[in-house]
């Protein structure tokens, strides 16, 4: 394979006006999710004493400053101090009935600690409903040991006979989940990590919806040869049935790689530069509302890196599907449809009640890989050779392997194509 061949295959894609539109849409998607995560409904918000709602970098500045004194190891002293303030503001709120935001405005910097208290202040591992007011009912004497409470809740969830999990998980799976929970290293640390948190959320949307747009870009690599009737000349060239096909595949994967990393880098850097790089070394548990049930013992930075790598694998997998369909069916439309269905169908099936509990197959769909780090996502485990592991680990090998296999099939199918048969 020659670099020139790959370059011209890439150029062939990029010179098409429709592909430029798709690139623009990807850029807009990146811009839109950035806006949403910074300034939009999903964005960071801070309520000032004067009642003004700040968003974006201004809100980040206020929150970072307010959380500074509530950063560090979440020990008993910090919890007692937080509890004292929470109770104080609960009392003061009664004297300010005209100000509906009185209490909220004052406890904004304490929200994560309050969430810890809410989550650990109960014994049962409930999914719903969530009691937002447990924290204020606690006393210094009844303050829980957070880590101990987390393990206890999980034990209840796994072994209580009234819990659906008791019969769903095997003994080995239960042991694995409890070990994951118990393995958390060191004491819990809290602090400002909004930049990483929002960048992660934005990345999810880029990976999910961007993969469909990406399929558009690579869908024509093979199919357009027959659409433009250029295949007759192409296949009579010296390298048209070998190196040329490899060059096409390489162009598809190269374009996917460059677009993916450029887009993810842009989105992450934009959000982090506006909301701050602080907190990358904090455990994701520092954001308890989202990660209380997480089995992944990761820092925000580690989660971002792994999720981005998983997303990349997913895009490459979709690119290989799109190229295979493009080569086999000579249809760019179908080449876009197949990966799109693959990522959208599980959501549709979920709404129809076909969930992981009712069909094991649902656990293998690629959307599960994108959502793996979303803390409230139910535990999806796999057991291979007696070893229990998150399904995510299996999916990594599965999709990497499938990507290679699909690319090989694509190469084999296309190089044996007859023209005019």
């Amino acid at each position, binding site marked *: 394979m*020659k670099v*020139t*061949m790959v370059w*011209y295959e890439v*150029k*062939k894609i990029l*010179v*098409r*006006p429709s592909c430029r539109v798709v690139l623009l849409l990807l850029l807009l998607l990146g811009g839109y999710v950035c806006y949403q995560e910074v300034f939009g409904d999903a964005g960071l918000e801070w309520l000032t004493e004067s009642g003004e709602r700040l968003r974006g970098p201004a809100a980040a500045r206020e929150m970072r400053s307010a959380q500074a004194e509530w950063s560090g190891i979440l020990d008993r002293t910090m919890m007692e101090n937080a509890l004292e303030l929470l109770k104080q503001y609960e009392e003061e709120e009664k004297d300010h009935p005209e100000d509906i935001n009185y209490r909220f405005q004052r406890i904004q910097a304490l929200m994560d600690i309050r969430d810890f208290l809410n989550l650990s202040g109960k014994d049962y591992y409930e999914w719903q409903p969530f009691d937002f007011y447990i924290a204020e009912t606690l006393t210094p004497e009844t303050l829980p040991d957070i880590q101990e409470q987390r393990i206890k809740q999980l034990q209840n969830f796994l072994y209580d006979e009234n819990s659906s999990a008791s019969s769903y998980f095997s003994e080995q799976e239960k042991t694995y989940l409890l070990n994951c929970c118990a393995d958390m290293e060191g004491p819990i640390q809290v602090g400002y990590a909004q930049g990483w948190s929002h960048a992660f959320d934005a990345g999810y949307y880029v990976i999910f919806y961007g993969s469909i747009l990406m399929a558009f870009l690579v869908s024509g690599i093979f199919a357009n040869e027959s659409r*433009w*009737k*250029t*295949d*007759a*000349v*192409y*296949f*009579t*060239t*010296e*390298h*048209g*049935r*070998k190196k*040329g096909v490899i060059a096409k595949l390489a162009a598809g994967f190269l374009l996917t790689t460059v677009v993916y990393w450029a887009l993810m880098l842009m989105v992450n850097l934009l959000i982090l530069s506006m909301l701050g790089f602080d907190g990358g070394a904090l455990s994701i548990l520092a954001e308890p509302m989202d990660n209380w049930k997480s089995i992944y013992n990761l820092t925000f930075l580690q989660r971002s890196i792994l999720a981005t790598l998983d997303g990349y694998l997913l895009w490459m997998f979709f690119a290989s599907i799109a190229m295979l369909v493009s080569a086999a069916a000579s249809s760019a439309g179908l080449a876009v449809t197949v990966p799109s269905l693959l990522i959208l169908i599980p959501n549709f099936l979920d709404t129809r009640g076909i969930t992981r509990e009712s069909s094991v197959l649902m656990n293998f769909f690629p959307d599960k890989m994108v959502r793996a780090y979303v803390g409230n996502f139910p535990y999806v485990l796999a057991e291979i050779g007696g070893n229990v592991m998150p399904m995510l680990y299996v999916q990594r090998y599965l999709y990497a392997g499938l990507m290679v296999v699909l690319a090989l099939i694509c190469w084999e199918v296309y190089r044996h194509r*007859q*023209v*005019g*048969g």
Partner: protein
Amino acid sequence: MELTITELTKDFRKTRAVSQVNYTFQSGVYGLLGVNGAGKTTLMRMITTLLKPTAGTITWDGQDVVQMDKDYRRILGYLPQDFGIYPDFTVQDYLLYMAPLKGIRPVLAKARAEEMLRMTGMTQHRKLKMKALSGGMKRRAGIAQAVINDPKILILDEPTAGLDPSERIRFRNLISELATDRVVLLSTHIVSDVESMAGQIILMKNGKFVMTGSSEELIRNCPDRGWLCDVPKKQVNDCCLKYRVSSIKTMADHAKLRILSREMPMPGAVLEETTLEDVFLSCFGERSGDESDHGVV
């Protein structure tokens, strides 16, 4: 330098497009003449490895072309009937894209592309997008890609179809220039094109080679002769039904008919020189796939 096809056959479901064809091509220009559906394109697609034969073999200097694989395609140049283009590529991009595909080393690609642009008179249009090219310019770009690798075998499927007369002449001259030291096989149903370019002519009908030879040989071996006859206007229709008429020129009170016939068709008929068109007409009848021996052309 010998391209040999042996018992070459291609079936499409119930249709036999090419039927047990045998022939040996050596250096020179070969014109494949036949009506639409005669099997010309299928034959060419087999020779270019685009289609697998149902039976038979194609060899180049004794080696099976399937076994030769890319070594065979290295010496191949092909301009298909429906020559497709990459619409958003410029002509130069197109040639620079084709060059490495045809095994031309990067250091030589640019010079070779320049040479092809010059040869086809496309230098000034090099920056034009291919979708903006006229039919003639597209064909010239097509021939440029076909010969960029200096092929030993050049296959041109209907290269002059759809071109205006001046473009056709230009194209014919270009092909004649390229004919040295290689096998050139061109298909057409335009008799004058093949007559002016091909040293050897192959008449193909219903998937078979029915006549082969030089233009002179084909004319000599043609069983029919051309007769010029003066016929009263009211008898024109009868003549058309009775004889194979190649042309009708209507005059004030009568018509001049050129009739193809082995014998003098009527008293007063004047024998004219037989042309390749007469051979074509004698061989193929009035239209594509028509087995009838009579009628108006």
